């Protein structure tokens, strides 16, 4: 029983890092004139996806039935997260910029790790 | 297959009086015939287990030699002796002899697995049944009592189908019913399958199934 909770806890922790990270230590570059570029909105979008993942993780931990379905629904959210910075929403032109050097790789790794955790959760979940 | 020990002795280094070694086993010559049960008794510390180890190929003698058929055990290199022991000599040791990471059944099949041979599954199941531990086949050794562990070791030694079976205090942890059952199994194993059985024991019950009884005192077989 306890082992079954591990993927949910990992997913919750990762989603917290994504949500809080995309507005703090992973946040994209700030323009000198204070305006926002597309990368800023890419970060915000990832924050939203991270929050959704967090809610799914809490549901997976609390629900007694349908756990596998919750984990499976986290997978497309992770895919969306992976595609958001750079593919769906463009980032700065220069790869030395913070959004490309820090935000994009870190978020892709975090979303990929979340996808693995969700997949593990789906495999481990025993439907009672 | 017949086993012969010729003038086998064993000394250990230990300061005793003027000498700096002592005889654990004084030179002894004895034969273990196929189809017979030999029982060795004696006080604690008289050298029974050392003699059993010498005969079973586990402890090289200081002098003398041990022959299984025509093969001089201790003339063989370690790898050949080990293979021969795994195929022809079964040992039930005095202490705990289970590998904790494996189940009871896996422990019983281990000798064959060591050499990548086909494990004697039917034999193992049959002996577990006969020794009353069939229900424990998937249990881990840590879940077993001393008596159950002892029976597991006996099932393991018998499943490998040895030519000579050595048992060191095999009934030490067993109740009367199981003691009788095990001794009967040993007797039948020797007589019906024509194997040599050598038992070291304090148990007077064991003497009853013996074809020959030996007594040991201060390293000397009387």
């Amino acid at each position, binding site marked *: 029983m306890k082992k079954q909770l591990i993927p949910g806890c990992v997913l919750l922790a990762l989603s917290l890092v994504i949500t809080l990270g995309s507005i703090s230590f992973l946040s994209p570059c700030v323009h000198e004139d204070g305006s926002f570029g597309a990368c800023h909105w890419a970060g915000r979008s990832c924050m939203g996806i991270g929050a959704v993942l967090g809610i799914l993780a809490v549901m997976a931990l609390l629900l007694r039935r349908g756990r596998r379905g919750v984990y499976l629904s986290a997978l497309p959210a992770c895919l969306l997260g992976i595609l958001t910075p750079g593919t769906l929403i463009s980032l700065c032109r220069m790869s030395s910029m913070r959004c490309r050097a820090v935000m994009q790789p870190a978020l892709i790794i975090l979303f990929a790790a979340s996808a693995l955790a969700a997949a593990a959760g789906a495999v481990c979940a025993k439907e009672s | 297959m017949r086993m012969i020990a010729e003038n086998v002795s064993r000394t250990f280094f230990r300061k005793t009086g003027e000498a700096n070694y002592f005889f654990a086993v004084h030179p002894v010559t004895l034969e273990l015939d196929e189809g017979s049960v030999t029982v060795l008794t004696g006080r604690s510390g008289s050298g029974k287990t050392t003699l059993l180890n010498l005969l079973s190929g586990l402890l090289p003698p200081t002098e003398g030699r041990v022959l299984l058929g025509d093969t001089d055990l201790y003339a063989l290199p370690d790898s050949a002796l080990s293979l021969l022991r795994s195929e022809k000599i079964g040992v039930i040791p005095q202490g705990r*002899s289970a590998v904790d990471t494996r189940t009871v059944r896996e422990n019983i099949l281990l000798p064959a697995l*060591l050499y990548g041979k086909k494990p004697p599954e039917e034999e193992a199941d049959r002996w577990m049944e006969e020794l009353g531990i069939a229900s424990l086949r998937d249990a881990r050794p840590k879940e077993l009592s001393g008596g159950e562990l002892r029976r597991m070791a006996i099932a393991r030694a018998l499943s490998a189908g040895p030519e000579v079976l050595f048992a060191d205090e095999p009934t030490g942890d067993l109740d009367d019913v199981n003691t009788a059952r095990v001794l009967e199994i040993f007797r039948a194993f020797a007589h019906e399958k024509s194997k040599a059985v050598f038992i070291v024991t304090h148990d007077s019950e064991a003497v009853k199934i013996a074809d020959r009884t030996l007594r040991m005192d201060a390293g000397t077989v009387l």
Partner: protein
Amino acid sequence: MKTFALSVQNLIRKPGRTVALSLLTAFLSLAVFGGTVVVLSLRSGLQSLESRLGADIILVPSEAQSKVSFKDLFLQGTAGAWYMDASVTEKALEVPGVEKAAPQTFLASLKADCCSVKIQVIGIDPQLDFTVQPWISRSLKNGLGDMEIAVGCKVEAGMGEILRIYDRQCKVTACLEPTGTGLDTAVYCNMDTMRKLLEAAEEKGINHKIKSGDEDIISAVYIKVRDGADIGQVNSALTGKLRKVTAVRTRSMITGISDSLAGVSRTVTLLIALVWVLAVVILLLVFLMISRERAGEFAVLRLLGASRQGLGRMVLTESALCGVLGGAAGTALAALCIFPFSALIEQQLSLPYLLPGAGTILALALGTVLLASAVSAAAGFLAARRLSRVDPGSALRGGT
């Protein structure tokens, strides 16, 4: 004895022990692989800077030295804007020993499209240039045309894409290979395009000290010294002849960089060595502890007919497998930290940084895994020796 299957089973049955041993080797390989990739990247970055500069001496206005460090342009791509008279090129060519002189004009762009930083636009004279042209011609046969630009590898723009610089549309016709230096963030164009961009900047009211009308204004002259000529002498001759111009010897600049690189390399090597010593000591201790813990198990196996050699092989196989597992995990973790974040590492180090090729990285990764498993197996060897000497007779004596 057939020990491989048993070794694998032993590892699976004792997951805690397996993970602990693997973690140690993972730590080792993380340090080795990560550290080596960083050091190699720094070395190839320096080599690339040397070959990309291609010039022996660079002439810049004296003010450039104080305003923005000239070195920063090459290392961090910091945009620079300083200017001098174009006649410097001809004057330089008159100095004995000078073989080639190529002028360049720098222009710091406004925000390019979405980017919040300025991009360094570098104007080159295709007739005289010998520093950038060879790199451009690799991907562009006909050279740079009007309103065409070549972009450094770190400017994310595909071929044929339009970049807006000062509201002028520039077509990307070449993408340069990575150099690991600040030159990767620059955009190159010919002098005609540069003039048009300057006009545009003027229209926007950007106060560049250069005006589009001043046709003869350049930012730097790259000098190639004739074979056999003494660079030092040419350097002094240039400084003597040209006023308000500083001659920077690229060699001295590169020596400075290579000194800091040597410092970083030394630190990284020291760290790797430290991690190794620690990990090997811990690994040895752990194996010694394990050999004590497993003495009983091995006595049983000896009793059941296992040979000394077979048992030794079993321990070696187990420890080598732990090494492979840990080595692969550590290498993968290091790769996960280094490759996606290479841009960040480059910025933090402020040194030329160019990742080695895929082949080198693959070989390095394989080597690291092999090394980790060899070290693990060597530590396991000690345990194997102790364990294979177990005397089953006495070990299995005494209470059940």
